[in-house]
């Protein structure tokens, strides 16, 4: 069973994404802030990370940077899932090593699941 970590500070979004991913056969972990996220990434070694960018304690860019700078974690795919949509933000996240950049408000839940499946292929 593939493991997915969702780092997101909005519990209602966590619930909805957690529900569909569990139904799709994934094991889902969640973290409400960046620090907790990194802690779980190291502890659980998930197959994929879904990462929001505006997060308490440590923002998504920092989390992404730390994942990509860590020899053991750097190949872990990270899908950014955020409502930040500045070109600068997108470029920064992609140059830091994010696999895909999705803007929440523009995607249906099924699209998000499809992107995850595509990435894990």
């Amino acid at each position: 069973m593939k493991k997915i970590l969702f780092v997101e500070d909005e519990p209602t979004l966590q619930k909805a994404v957690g529900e569909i991913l569990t139904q799709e056969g994934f094991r889902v972990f969640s973290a409400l802030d960046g620090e907790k996220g990194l802690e779980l990434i190291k502890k659980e070694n998930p197959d994929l990370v879904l990462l929001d960018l505006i997060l308490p304690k440590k923002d998504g860019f920092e989390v992404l940077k730390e994942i990509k700078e860590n020899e053991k974690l750097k190949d872990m795919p990270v899908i950014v899932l955020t409502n930040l949509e500045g070109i600068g933000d997108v470029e920064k996240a992609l140059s830091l090593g994010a696999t895909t950049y999705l803007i929440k408000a523009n995607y249906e839940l099924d699209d998000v699941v499809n992107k995850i499946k595509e990435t894990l292929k």
Partner: protein
Amino acid sequence: MGAIIIGAMLTTYYIGIHYFTPEMLIVVLGTTTIVLLIVGHTIVASFERIAQANRMKSEFVSIVSHQLRTPLSSLRWSLDLLRGGRLGEVNKKQEEYLNIVNESNNRMIDLVNDLLNVNRIEEGRFEIKPEMFSIESLSEEVIEELRPIANKSGVVINLYKDKNIPSTYADPNRIRMVVENLIDNAIKYSKKDIKDKFINVGLKQEKDEIRFSVEDNGIGIPAILQKQVFGKFFRGDNLIKQKVEGTGLGLFIAKGIINLSGGEIGFKSTEGQGSTFWFTLPIKK
């Protein structure tokens, strides 16, 4: 401001020296200075207030829009689960109402996105990322995407294009927004009571530019309203006394995008006969 006060005082002094005794001159100059300082201060303060009000308005729109997007996303995804039957079987009536909620939610998301874009355009913060791309493929994709909606309204979409349309230099994601908006408007404002409803999308090369156009035989725009078409919150639905969905911000955003891309946008319309909206884009960087 200081220069104006000194200038005014010198003028008062040179004029006053001929008419007043030295004591009176001091009183006149003193009074002039006080009056000028008060007037000056009021003018500067009111300019600052206007600037501040504008800043506050922009910040307000931006914060509200961003804050709205999170709950709207929650709503959308929770609805996706419900509508997809992932939380249990949904009966016909429930499905009908879930679809209504979903439609309304999508309209709110569109409105928030449009307001954010308008705010960015007005503040000069709207970003574009130009690259060479095929506007021909983009137009074909958008037409196929909107064809089912057009079919529902009984509108036929045709594409007339020159052979070998060269690539253009612009931001494909932003240009897609404009192309979608123009074709979508042509569908929305088609006539209800005629048989042969059409939309002719055209692509032509004219010197160093590509000219994209959308011609329809819809309701057209009355001459009296034509000046407002690219303004904010221009909506055609009061013209036809029927409800048409939309924020009234699409053409304002379209104009902003095309201007930023180094092109021009315009239209020709006759009430009761139809409209042709067009824009141009540079071929070269």
